[in-house]
Structure formats: C-alpha cells, structure tokens
C-alpha cells in the first residue's frame, strides 16, 4: 500500500473529525460538563452531536456490510469481540470519571492542542501516562499469572 493511500484517508478523517468537534462546541469542556450535569443546568447539545454522528455511521455500517474491501485499503480490520468482561466495565467507569472531572475526552483533548495548548498539553501528557500505566499493570498481571 502506497504512502499516500495510508496517509490521506486518515488525515482527511482527522480533519473532518476536528472540524465537527469544534463546530459542535465539544472542544469546550463547559459544554461537555453541562451535558453531564443532568441534575443541574442541563445542556443537551452533546445529545444532538451523538444523534448526528450515529445516524451517519449507521448508514456507513450498512454500506460496509456490502463491501468486500475498503475503498483505499486491502482489508477491513474491525473489532469482533462480543464478550462483556469486567475490564470493559471498569475501564469505561474510570474513563467516565475523568471525562466528568475535566469535561475532556481524547478527541477534544487532541483537537485542543491547537486551540488551547496550555490547557490541552498537561491533559494529553497525563492521558498518555495513564495509558502507559495501564499497559504496565496489565503486562505485570499477565506475567504473574
């Protein structure tokens, strides 16, 4: 696969993704926390973002089901796990706590590296540290068992 085919579709996807996050106000942590503040001054904007994105993706999944291979690639490589394990639940729970505390998840955090670097940098650095910590603790667990 040529470099262009490897690079351009993800680059275009990232550009659209960053535009969408910024247009919808999701790069503003106040708006994200406003959505999670269901017992306070609830801001439903994030629900509209999810609806817009999910409707488009629901169509895309139907198209994908009829395709033999991706337009710019050789094979589909998609998650196929169906088991509901404790890691999924605990991981999602820990992620949600962090998401609520700062109003940032990975997408808006990386988009904010360009918009508000002084706030986004410490968050992204800590996020990478958290990812590394997870990797190290998992490797230890595996080697012990």
């Amino acid at each position, binding site marked *: *696969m040529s470099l262009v085919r*490897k*690079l351009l*579709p*993800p*680059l*275009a996807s*990232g*550009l659209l*993704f960053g535009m969408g996050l*910024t*247009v*919808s*106000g999701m790069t*503003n*942590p106040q708006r994200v926390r406003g959505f999670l503040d269901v017992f306070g001054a*609830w801001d439903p*904007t994030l*629900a*509209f*973002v*999810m609806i*817009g*994105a999910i409707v*488009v*993706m629901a*169509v*895309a999944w139907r198209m994908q089901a009829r395709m033999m291979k*991706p337009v710019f690639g050789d*094979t589909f*490589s*998609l*998650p196929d*796990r169906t*088991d*509901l394990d404790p890691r*999924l*639940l605990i*991981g*999602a*729970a*820990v*992620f*949600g706590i962090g998401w609520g*505390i*700062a109003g*940032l*998840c990975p997408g808006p955090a*990386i988009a904010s590296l*360009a*918009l*508000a670097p002084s*706030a*986004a940098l410490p*968050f992204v650095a*800590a996020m990478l540290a958290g*990812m*590394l*910590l*997870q990797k190290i603790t998992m490797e230890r667990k595996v080697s012990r068992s």
Partner: protein
Amino acid sequence: MTLPGFPDAAPLHGLVGGVLIGLAAALMLLGAGRIAGVSGILARGTGIASGGMARTSAWGFLVGLPLGALAIRFATDWEPARFAGWPTLVLAGLAVGFGTRLGSGCTSGHGVCGVSRLSQRSLLATATFMATGIASVSVMSLLGG
C-alpha cells in the same frame, strides 16, 4: 436556533458537528477499513499499542484532528472554551488514559462507532461512562467544585 427551556443549548451546531464527526468516522471505516476510535489511534501512534492500523495512518489522523479544529476556529469566533486548572486536568487525564485503554475505547470508538453498529460491548461501555461522568459532575457540584 435555540431549544425551548434550554437557552444555552446549541442543537443546530451540535447536529452539524455530529454529522461531520459521523462523516469522519465513515471515511475511516469505508476508506481505510478501520474504526475511528481516538484513544486507540493515539495509543497506536505513540507506540503504546502495537497492533492496529499503520502508524503512518494513525499519525495522519492525529495531525488532522487539531488542524481541522484550527480551521473552524479561524473561520468563526465560535466558541471560547473554558478549561479546569492543571491539577484537575492532570488527574482527569490519568483517569481518561487508563480507563480508555482498559475499556478498549472512548466516546468516539464506543460512543459513535460501536453504538451505531449496535455492539453490545460499546452500548454497555457508553452507558457506563455516561453514568460515571454524570456521577462525577454531580458529586463535584455538590462539593461546590
């Protein structure tokens, strides 16, 4: 456009941004044959995760994301973001990084791509991080944060 009863909500911005995010994820799926999950792509690009898309592809997406955000910021004055202080950002970033890796995804991978595919793992993860996100915002506002 405003929503009756929710003066701060931006439903139209939310929908338009959501559709852009959906198109971004659709381009990644149908173009590259991959899931547009930001936490997974970040782990792949930085080398924290070893499997998955080509690192060139991961970096294409990761560079596109802030550039797309910047393009919208230059085109409009929408909308100033307010961030937490850096100790809060660091604490939240650690939880987001650890949790998204343990739970195999974040708002984009589980919330948009997985939910639109009706993946049971993603539906459970999304319900979980929404619930703990709501809990952490609510507890913080109870404590006066």
